[in-house]
């Protein structure tokens, strides 16, 4: 089997444990000999799917206990006689264990400790491991004695939505007093507050058929599909395949149900194209057969082994999906139905049969369904005394009468449990008999069942509306999303035989839809069973809290109040009472809640409708959804060709987009960045410097129509650019605002090299491809990025030519005459290495850009430094680059910010009137031509020693600084070593005509307020003589 990792055999606990499995299902013998770990009273002497050969220790609230591999925390607690496990959300009522699965609303604990603490972990799904540490939550000072349980006393005031009606006075108290109190009381477990030490990963999985759930339906579906040769993935959130088969003591074929499941799992594991993923919950269903699934790779260990993730998020692409997720049992609503010891009947059977754990010694069984016979049978076989069977139906089937007889239990047909007695554990139950008398029966366990709701969650998000099925008094999936089918209990087929049959059929059909034909799988024989039950939503009784949503403490009264206050739509009911909004998403409570609302508003259940289940089906660790992408790997890092060299120089680096660039190169003795940067600038202006500019976007544009194409995307003209020359170009968006700028060179009649800003490289290429492929497909032109192919360095300063003479091969004449400003040529360098040379200047000095294939970039920078040594060359970083462009008044990202037009930036003259180009028309809208628009200017502090800051706003001198007189803002600033003071660039209302004026550069967020003089943006060498030298 090809697996991401060797999937733990689905037959967990084979060998010894498997031996148990083989016995599992047969009547377990009531515990004869006391066992180790003090669990004897509550652990059956034999049976169950636990590995008795090994005993593991764990602690709960600091106390030590022992259990076995194969236990969940919940089963181990039960086997140790622990009943009180948690406190409820609002009233802090003592709570125990209600279920044996992920739907558990009560038994939530803080699992693990320190940075690994996981709040709200369901004890019913947490696999037991040696050294497990768990603590109860939402209680103070202790679980047994919890001060906030006083809330119960004022419960009537804390009715649904009470907080909307008070805490309004005085207003200022909300943040200071009321809210902190509410926040502290609310919430359940505590986060560790520390960085998660474990790693996570994501992976992709493709298959023909995805099967969600490995119970009888899922196993049969997988078998039927798998045998056809189709690629099948079977996910089950449990660590062991079998679903209810593990929880019941049934016989399938001639094997025990658990054994049969193991047997099928083994055959599946042997099929080459079947992939079994246990401990994997399918959590979401998205468009086009995309599913997300969470694999708890190592949660069954104290810590993940080295090099292994804690969890893995699968993105599964499946042509077909068979939902075989089973059904969830519903509690009954009666007084104090949340007392520890009140448990779902299906869970009681699961603890007895699968875990050989005994949830009580004297039981009462309360339901209105035929399954009761099974519950009673399992209980008495386990040596639990069944005090009474309470069946709300006046007519009970023979099976139940027989069970009563066999177990010696009293049968109270037409009766109902009206209240559970006891606080930290049930001591007794009050029962209203058919005759209407109330009777108290002592017991320490109440097994109840309100029927089953299909686990149809994964059908809901994609818009399939469930339909009401009278037959089983539950919602079943309606018209299913494309590619999805259901089988077994998930489809409302509650019986085992139905599950097996529908599973086999669904698997075969799904494979067939993917083009794989096969033989039907023969369905094994099973004992006949009846899944009949009568709906019983609530029991009227004495005044006592009757809970619908245990986890959010939503009681019957809250539902009534919602109805009373007009919150009658299920969606309002949900949001007003928070019914179904807790961590269990109402898995056990939603249907009951809306049934009660239907009754209260005299509507039918289908009329009342349901809320929508959204992903995830079960809560998912956020770390798992992030996977590898956190910390430094949040996003990839892009390194320019000189990176290694720059590291050797001790450069300081800065993130520019994904790129990491050298920001400046500190030297010993330099006290701060400003000193280093100024020194770099002075070096360039007085001698020569070198800077890696490989990050600028470079786009190769070829073809007979290349020039025409550039004409249409740039505001200025290209058809008249001579080969071997470069030109500065400006691009607009179609809405008339500036998109990007850069110099573009013509290397041949039909070949141009477009350069873009580092920030916009990707955007510009996309834009060009759009223009070519969609707007002007008739043009014969091709383009692609060559940014990564070329290492490009700017060599700038009066001595740059001399340096390049030692780099560019001698046969190339780079004299001013032969290679003037804005020249471009293909040359060779360093002795025959292909190179491109451009005479461009961002710094305003005599300067060149030289490019070689990226692999030679490292060699080139070293060669340039070597050739420059006699001229005292120095490398410079992005800061110095920025200073010099500001001194020269070149616009950059801070000015080309998507809100400025060519005219705003003083580049209006570049807008050709003789041709069309992207953005031409919209740039002409009245508001964009308004004379008072902020336009590009230079600024000097009147006090030359003052520092300028970008982001400061311009307000008139003497006027009060208010929005009405806001005239623009400072876009860029730098300390100019050449001028010896700070200089700035900015956008000032009507700026072009205001040179010489003074305005305030107002910067309250940094308590700055400087008088500045408006001037021409070009501070340095306005005539531009230096760069032509």
């Amino acid at each position, binding site marked *: 089997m090809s697996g991401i990792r060797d999937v733990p055999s689905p037959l967990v606990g084979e060998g010894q444990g498997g031996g148990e499995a083989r016995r599992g299902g047969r009547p377990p013998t009531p515990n004869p000999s006391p066992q180790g770990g003090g669990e004897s009273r509550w652990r059956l002497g034999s049976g169950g799917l636990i590995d008795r050969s090994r005993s593991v220790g764990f602690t709960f609230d600091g106390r030590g206990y022992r259990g076995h591999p194969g236990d969940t925390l919940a089963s181990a607690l039960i086997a140790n006689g622990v009943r009180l496990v948690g406190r409820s959300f609002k009233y802090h009522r003592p709570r125990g264990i209600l279920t044996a699965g992920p739907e558990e609303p009560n038994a939530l604990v803080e699992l693990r400790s320190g940075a690994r603490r996981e709040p709200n972990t369901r004890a019913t799904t947490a696999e037991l491991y040696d050294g497990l540490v768990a603590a109860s939550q939402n209680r103070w000072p202790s679980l047994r004695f919890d001060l906030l349980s006083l809330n119960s006393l004022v419960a009537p005031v804390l009715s649904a939505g009470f907080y909307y009606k008070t805490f309004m006075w005085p207003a200022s108290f909300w943040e200071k007093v009321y809210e902190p109190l509410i926040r502290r009381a609310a919430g359940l477990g505590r986060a560790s507050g520390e960085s998660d030490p474990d790693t996570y990963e994501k992976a992709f999985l493709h298959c023909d058929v995805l099967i969600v759930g490995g119970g009888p339906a899922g196993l049969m579906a997988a078998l039927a599909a798998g045998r056809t040769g189709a690629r099948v993935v079977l996910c089950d959130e449990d660590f062991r395949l079998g679903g209810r088969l593990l929880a019941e003591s049934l016989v399938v074929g001639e094997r025990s149900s658990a054994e049969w499941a193991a047997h099928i799992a083994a055959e599946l594991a042997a099929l080459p194209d079947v992939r079994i993923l246990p401990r994997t919950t399918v959590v979401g269903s998205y468009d086009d057969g995309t599913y997300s699934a969470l694999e708890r790779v190592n949660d069954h260990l104290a810590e993940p082994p080295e090099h292994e993730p804690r969890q893995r998020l699968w993105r599964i692409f499946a042509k077909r999906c068979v939902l075989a997720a089973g059904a969830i049992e519903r509690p009954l609503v009666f007084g104090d139905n949340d007392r520890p010891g009140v448990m779902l009947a299906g869970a009681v059977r699961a603890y007895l049969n699968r875990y050989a754990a005994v949830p009580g010694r004297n039981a009462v069984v309360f339901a209105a369904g035929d399954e009761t016979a099974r519950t009673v049978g399992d209980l008495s076989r386990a040596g639990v005394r069944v005090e009474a069977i309470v069946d709300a139906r006046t007519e009970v089937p023979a099976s139940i009468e027989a069970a009563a007889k066999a177990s010696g239990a009293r049968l109270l047909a037409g009766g109902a449990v009206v209240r559970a007695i006891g606080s930290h554990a049930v001591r007794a139950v009050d029962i209203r008999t058919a005759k209407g008398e109330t009777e108290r029966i002592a017991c320490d366990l109440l097994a109840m069942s309100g029927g089953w709701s299909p686990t149809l969650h994964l059908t809901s998000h994609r818009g399939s509306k469930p339909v009401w099925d009278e037959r089983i008094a539950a919602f079943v999936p309606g018209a299913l999303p494309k590619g999805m089918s259901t089988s077994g209990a998930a489809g409302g087929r509650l019986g085992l035989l139905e599950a097996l049959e529908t599973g086999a059929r669904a698997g075969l059909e799904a494979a067939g839809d993917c083009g794989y034909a096969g033989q039907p799988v023969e369905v094994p024989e099973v004992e006949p069973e009846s899944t009949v039950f009568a709906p019983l939503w609530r029991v009227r009784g004495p005044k006592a809290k009757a809970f619908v949503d245990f986890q959010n403490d939503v009681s019957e009264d809250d539902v009534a109040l919602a109805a009373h206050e007009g919150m009658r739509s299920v969606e309002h009911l949900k949001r007003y009472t928070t019914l179904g909004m807790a961590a269990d998403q109402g898995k056990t409570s939603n249907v009951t809640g809306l049934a009660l609302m239907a009754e209260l508003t005299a509507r039918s259940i289908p009329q009342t409708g349901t809320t929508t289940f959204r992903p995830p089906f079960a809560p998912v660790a956020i770390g798992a959804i992030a996977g590898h992408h956190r910390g430094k790997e949040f996003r990839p890092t892009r390194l320019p060709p000189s990176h290694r060299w720059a590291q050797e120089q001790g450069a300081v680096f800065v993130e520019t987009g994904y790129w990491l660039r050298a920001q400046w190169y500190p030297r010993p003795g330099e006290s701060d960045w400003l000193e280093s940067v100024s020194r770099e600038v002075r070096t360039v202006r007085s001698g020569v410097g070198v800077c890696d500019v490989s990050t600028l976007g470079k786009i190769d544009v070829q073809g007979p129509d290349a020039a025409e194409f550039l004409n249409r995307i740039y505001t200025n003209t290209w058809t008249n650019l001579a080969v071997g020359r470069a030109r500065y170009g400006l691009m607009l968006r179609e809405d008339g605002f500036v998109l990007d700028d850069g110099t573009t060179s013509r290397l041949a009649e039909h070949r141009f090299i477009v350069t873009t800003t580092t920030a916009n490289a990707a955007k510009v290429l996309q834009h060009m491809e759009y223009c070519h492929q969609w707007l002007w497909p008739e043009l014969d032109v091709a383009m692609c990025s*060559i940014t990564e*192919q070329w*290492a490009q360095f700017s060599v700038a300063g009066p001595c740059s030519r001399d340096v390049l003479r030692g780099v560019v091969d001698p046969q190339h004449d780079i004299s001013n005459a032969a290679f003037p400003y804005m020249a471009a040529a293909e040359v060779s360098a*360093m002795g025959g290495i292909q190179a491109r040379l451009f005479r461009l200047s961002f710094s305003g000095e005599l300067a060149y850009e030289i490019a070689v294939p*990226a692999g030679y970039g490292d060699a080139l920078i070293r*060669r340039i430094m070597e050739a420059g040594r006699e001229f005292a060359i120095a490398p410079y970083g992005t800061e110095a680059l920025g200073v010099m462009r500001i001194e020269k008044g070149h616009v950059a990202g801070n000015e080309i910010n998507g809100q400025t037009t060519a005219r705003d930036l003083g580049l209006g003259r570049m807008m050709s009137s003789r041709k069309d180009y992207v953005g031409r028309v919209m740039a002409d809208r009245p508001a964009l031509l308004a004379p008072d628009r902020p336009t590009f200017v230079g600024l000097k502090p009147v006090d030359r020693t003052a520092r300028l800051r970008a982001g400061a706003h311009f307000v008139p001198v003497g006027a009060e600084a208010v929005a009405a007189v806001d005239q623009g803002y400072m876009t860029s600033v730098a300390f100019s070593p050449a001028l010896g003071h700070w200089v700035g660039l900015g956008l000032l209302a009507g700026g072009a005509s205001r040179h010489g004026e003074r305005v305030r550069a107002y910067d309250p967020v940094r308590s700055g307020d400087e008088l500045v003089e408006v001037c021409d943006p070009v501070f340095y060498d306005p005539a531009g003589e230096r760069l032509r030298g």
Partner: protein
Amino acid sequence: MAETLIRSVSALDGAVAPGRHGHRAGDVGVIATEVRNAGLALVTARKGQRAPLAETVRSTFGVALPDAPRRVAGHDIAFIWSGPDQWLAHMAPAPAAGMEAELTPLAGMAALVDQSHGRTVLRVTGPRVRDALAKGFPIDLHPRAFRTGDTAVTSVAHIGAQLWQVDDAPTYEIAVARGFALSFWHWLEASAAEYGLELTR
């Protein structure tokens, strides 16, 4: 001045040590090797020139240009589909005169752009290579879905990548932009760690 030896350095040089990474015990699950000094060029058919281009490629290099995501190899050159009317010409080792020169017979029919230095190419193989790649490559690498000669342009761990299968071992070659090579390696290292990853020279 002193002659420094001019050699092309890889983006991984000095940043990644050859040898075993991740899980060290037992057999190695994934073996990676950088394909050095290969020649790569992007060949884009000019408007209306697709047919003549295909014909010239056949006559000059003995390769039938694929018009689906496939890699077709001649004796010393392979053409790897990388987009509509677009291919990567791949030669290892790179021709002395450079890729654009090597491909001049195609000039006029296609735009030719050297990318030899623009991409870092890793060859990966080993018993768990599919499992490791599945942790980032969204494409289906099942032997029935992706065969020798197939290629895909996609992205992995937020990095653009092109991958092609060169044999049934299976062995894949993965090309990523040079600047991202190190980040790509970090992802590969993390993804193969549990199986053990060997970087060979």
